[in-house]
């Protein structure tokens, strides 16, 4: 299932899928990534991280000290100046390579819609076969606002030529974490 998800997601446009056995490894990767992207305290170079289950295992204060441009309090202002936005998604859909977001909390949308690079954290155990699983497992009665996200923001409005990063992220980085929420697959 993971393999199909990875193949389809990476075919959906400027998307990279990585898999980690443990949350610790994923966090290590995120730190390296923030360094690589030169996250610092200047508009355009911020990183924002919306609330999510994985954050329970993170020492936020220590992280902010390491990366002065990183914020866990997502606002319109810092999301607008963010190079990287990090958020956790509810489930993955192998057939399309897409993911479902519980978007009720506006910070989830701000962190994933305004930045240049969206880092999406996804429990590997929550990848399901097809779109039908989304319709079975999530329902508007429980979620006031849901979003399916598949790949990076794109357009073909000029001469049918694909271009990425129109109004949303130019790049989507999906981190699948095996030990998040439940047993390993």
């Amino acid at each position, binding site marked *: 299932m993971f393999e199909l998800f990875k193949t389809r997601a990476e075919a959906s*446009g400027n998307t990279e899928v990585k898999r980690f056995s443990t949350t610790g490894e994923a966090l290590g990767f995120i730190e390296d990534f923030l360094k690589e992207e030169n996250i610092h305290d200047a508009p355009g170079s911020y990183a924002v991280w919306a609330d999510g289950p994985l954050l329970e295992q993170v020492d936020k204060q220590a992280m902010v000290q390491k990366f002065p441009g990183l914020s866990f309090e997502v606002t*319109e202002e810092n999301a607008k100046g963010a190079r990287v936005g990090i958020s956790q998604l509810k489930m993955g859909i192998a057939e399309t390579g897409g993911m479902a977001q519980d978007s009720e909390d506006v910070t989830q949308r701000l962190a994933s*819609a*305004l930045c240049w690079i969206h880092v999406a954290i996804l429990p590997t155990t929550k990848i399901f076969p097809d779109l039908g699983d989304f319709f079975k497992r999530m329902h508007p009665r429980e979620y006031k606002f849901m979003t399916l996200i598949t790949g*990076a923001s794109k*357009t073909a409005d000029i*001469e*049918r030529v694909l271009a990425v*990063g129109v109004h*949303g992220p130019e790049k989507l980085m999906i981190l699948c974490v095996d030990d998040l929420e439940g047993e390993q697959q």
Partner: protein
Amino acid sequence: MKPQMPKNINEALQSNSLAGILDRWDYPATRAKAFEGIDFQALRRKIATVKSGVASNFDAVVETFTKNAQANGIKVFRANSPKEAKDYIAALCKEKGVKKIVKSKSMATEEIHLNHHLDQFGIESNETDLGEWICQLAHHTPSHMVLPAIHLSKEEISDLFSEETKKPLDSDIQKLVKVAREQIRERFFEADLGISGGNIAIADTGTIVITENEGNGRLATTLPNVHLALVGIEKLVPTFEDAEHVLKALPRSATGQLSTTYNSFISAPTRNADGSMKEVHVVLLDNNRTKMAADPKFKEALQCIRCAACLNVCPVFRLVSGHVFGDIYTGGIGTILTAWFTELKSAEKIQGLCIGCGKCTEICPGNIDIAGLILEIRHRIAKKEGLPFVYKGALQVINNRKLFHSLLRAGSIAQKPFVKDGFIRHLPFFLSGFTEHRSLPTVAPVAFRDLFKTIKQPKSETKAAFFAGCALDFVYPETGKNIIKVLNQGGVEVVFPEEQSCCGIPHWGSGSFDMAAQSAAHNLKTLLEDDPDYVVVGCASCATALKKEWAEILKEQGMEALIPQANKVAQRAYMFTELVNKLVEEKKLTPKEGIDIHTLTYHDSCHAKRHCGLSTEPRAALSAAGYAITDMKECDVCCGMGGAYTIKQSDVSMQMLKRKLENINNTGAEFVSAECPGCLIQLGGGLDKAGSTIKAMHPADLMVDKFQ
């Protein structure tokens, strides 16, 4: 200088960058790949069932949506007319003190000309979808429902952006997209109101679904403190689960994607970034949709999911684009929606561009007979306004067998000064346009009906009545003779009912259903006289009449008493190659031994492939007769003949022919075959005019010496 929208067909044909863009995209292949593993027929039937069910019950479904959305905290307003929708939105703007609006893509707002209306109150509407923004800068209407600015080149867009940013820009598309991002980003933060459309509205849960690729829809529904969605009531589905079918079909049909990048499901107001509660309004737009639902024929058009597949596959649309072929909504479905959302009269010019090839009907994920409904528009215009006098006169002549036939005989003499090798290459004066790219065939000196009397028929148990059709009877009598010869070789005795006349397809195609029904009635009796086992037709257009249209047209015209006879003819009607294939399979017709193999490419005529469903049988029959078939690119795309179309829309017809000839030439085959004299006139004339060595021939002419 701002680029101009083409005002007529000639201008559109000259500024034709669209065809090249659609070619590079290769929509049919991209779409087919996206649908791999999905039962398209089953999916389109599901969508049709769901949406047709809603259209049968608009009031109740609107009420359910309203009740549920309101219970979630959304304000819902049903607007019966564009005016009511515009007034509601203007009043909301006044109440909230809205000065600036950001809009994500919405065809419904285009339909009611919302921006223009709000402009009058000094309210600034900013389009944020890239294509819509480009159209706004150019002061153009969208030319395509999914790709609004596809008619403009990157150079023209670069000029528009330079003018807007007051900076010189190059025409690199990736850079232009970033310019748009930078220019539009701040507007999302400044706007007081975000307006979106809605691709689906779910009644059970009060949810609006917005599908998009750019992310502007997410920003327009997130950043301003008020969100308003304008949604046509045909977007309603009863349950959340019903939305799945649309979400499967829409991206695959629209762009060849498995999913669009973002699908937002908004069911209730949520908190804004400043902590306030967002105000969410849904305006459900009727604008004649209820009236449309009450029409037994046009109700079907409400199954549309606005994917624009019908535009992408339309051989006419690709040549003239949506500014000529359409109004606000463009192309095939756009013609139908224009007739209802604007008025029947406004669709009059547009409908004339449809050649009736049926590509749109075949591809539609809403299972709408788009070509059939455009024909219905033609019919209603003909009924309401009558046909242009001269054209109607011509159709009446065709229906008067004796007069028509004697005129055709006279024609064979009158044409003499212009004839060489059986083709008319030049015509005098104003008629010269007809022969510019294509020579016309001549009327034969001896008609098939006279030739037939000279062919001695074997006595046989198996009898076929031959329906020649006008073209084989008067232009290609030799082909008729060859059909008889092959059938005789297969042990079939052929009779030729003398009283037969035009099949009625020209009348049907021009919307004169009453005259078409008269043709059907006239022919039925004479064809069944000898109680034949088969009724054989050598023309796919006539075959369509016999196999399909006669029964339907008789029903439509209230002539039910004749339907059993029409059904009898339909059951016995065979296209020539279809019967040859059957006779070969039954070993009644055996290919000669040691025949030379020749190369051939087969053109699927619209009537054969999409109306009669015959594409494998003709190929099998030709293969049996010793032809190695190489399929040309777009083998089932219309050649541009379309009966009277080639005269009424001659420029478009000739451009379609040009493309067809290129595809034929690229196969390197010796022959091109089609079982439709109309196509053969078009293809053969085009090849002759171009000096090509490839011969366009009817299957019977290719088969005549190949069987024992």
